[in-house]
């Protein structure tokens, strides 16, 4: 695929899924402005290296990788802190336990959870974003569910 076409598709991704990108970035960096910066730079990275993408794996997964990597580099505070702009659930549950468990997750599990739940990505797209095998995504997500289960189950009580 020539570079111009990659540029065009990246732009389409940006316009169609900016909210998801921004949300995942926000989950990683814990700050709206930093998240926006990570998304913008992530997409800029994707454009700068458009010539390096050679149709191996989904383009969306590759762009996600750029954004996630940029967010990981941008992160200034641990994710275990509640994002300042996060809304408190109106069901009266305390999310501190869930937050604590999220913070305790290995980074890969945490990123898989974010990409799965905040961006609604398929396994192969998550695999492309994190440069891991699709089977590893499944196993990682399963492990994350097991680690988080106590948190959300307790919250549901």
């Amino acid at each position, binding site marked *: 695929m*020539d*570079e*111009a*076409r990659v*540029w*065009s598709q990246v*732009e389409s991704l*940006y*316009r169609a899924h*900016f*909210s*998801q990108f*921004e*949300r995942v970035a*926000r*989950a990683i960096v814990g700050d709206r402005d930093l998240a*926006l910066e990570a998304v*913008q*730079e992530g*997409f*800029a990275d994707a*454009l*700068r290296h458009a*010539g390096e993408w050679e149709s191996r794996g989904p383009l969306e997964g590759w762009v996600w990788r750029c954004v996630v990597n940029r967010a990981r580099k941008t992160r200034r505070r641990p994710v275990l802190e*509640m*994002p300042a702009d*996060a*809304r*408190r*659930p109106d*069901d009266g*549950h305390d*999310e501190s336990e*869930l*937050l604590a468990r999220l913070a305790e997750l290995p980074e890969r599990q945490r990123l898989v*959870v974010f990409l*799965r*739940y*905040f961006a609604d990505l398929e396994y192969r797209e998550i695999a492309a974003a994190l440069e891991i095998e699709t089977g590893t995504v*499944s196993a990682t*997500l*399963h492990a994350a*569910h097991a680690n*988080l289960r106590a*948190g*959300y*189950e307790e*919250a*549901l009580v």
Partner: protein
Amino acid sequence: MSSIDWVPELAARLDALVPLEDSPRADWGDVVARTGRRRQLRLWRTFPRRRLRLAIVVALLFLLLTGAATATYLLLRANGDIAVPGRGKLLVFNPNGQRLHAIASCPAHSPSCAIGSPAWSPAGTRVAFLRGFYGGGNAPSHLFLYVAAADGRGMRRLAACGSCGTQWGEQHIAWSPDGRWIAFTRDTGTRRRRQEALWVDSAAGGRLHRLTYCHPSCADVQPAWSPDGHLLAFLHLAPTSSVWHLYTVHSDGSGLTEIADGAEPQWSPDGRRIAFDLRKGGIEVADADGSHVHLLIAGKSPGAPSWSPNGRKLVFFNAPGWPGHYRAEVWTMNADGSHKKRLYRSGCCVDSWAPPIWSPDGRMIAFSANSARGTFVINAEGTGLRRLSSIVTDSLSWQAQPKGKQR
């Protein structure tokens, strides 16, 4: 999606933690600006990479071809065309063998007519030649000196010159360095009393005058004008003598001076020396006043020397073998006779040939020989032999590229 893949309860909690927002902050222009490639983006879109690669390859090929063409042009720029007489015509070839046009031709159905002895003017804008009836055996020649423009236009007959010295060597017409005058041998005597003297006519015609006198029976032939235009060297033949005498004379006919025994005089480009044939064979060189005679090469067959344009080398013809079995060879040597190198050798047997001549830029040499079956050009270092024509001739002339002329 299985429940393992997606846990609704977890999704709800996470949604609450990091809710999805609208995207008013999306700014694609900012993304592009961060790449610093806004202009390039337009270029990429209008010029995809594959096409760009193709364009680069095409551009490189174009540059390669134009570079080769330029090199060829520069190589040949100083060299004009080669005049090759033969088959009743005076033809012009460029050095790569392309036949260009005929400068002159004999009338149709006139087998006794021939054209020979071409000589380009120093500026390369005109060519002088002999045209008429070439005799044979006891039949005398009836030739005329002509001048024509390089493209053959404006052909003009300057003078009748009889045999024009054609029975003596191959050097019959000499242009003055300024291109205003032409020296040649004019036969004005009778069969019993030969009167072949040097004459000079204006290249524009109408100013014919005699330069040398010889009585009662003699021939002054093979004129060669010195580079400064002050002197003419020539061969003086006395039929009663077995010796060839080389003389110089001022262009006004004064100052006749014998300088050496030899023939086919060739001025060095700096005008200080003259190379010439020995009657017994071999090539000598002497100062213009006849002093400091130096043998360059001995032997029965080397002869017809020609100076390279820079005066550092000489090219000469050699015909080793025995009667009836001579081969044609073209050699070069340094001006002091060292570093002799054979550039070409034909098979047997040569009996008709044109002395080798240098290209005006000194990079190539042209020659003709029947044993080689044509007229050839070869690089001065002995490579790149190529045939100009199947015509075998006895005289060639290489045009200096006229100023301002674009090939």
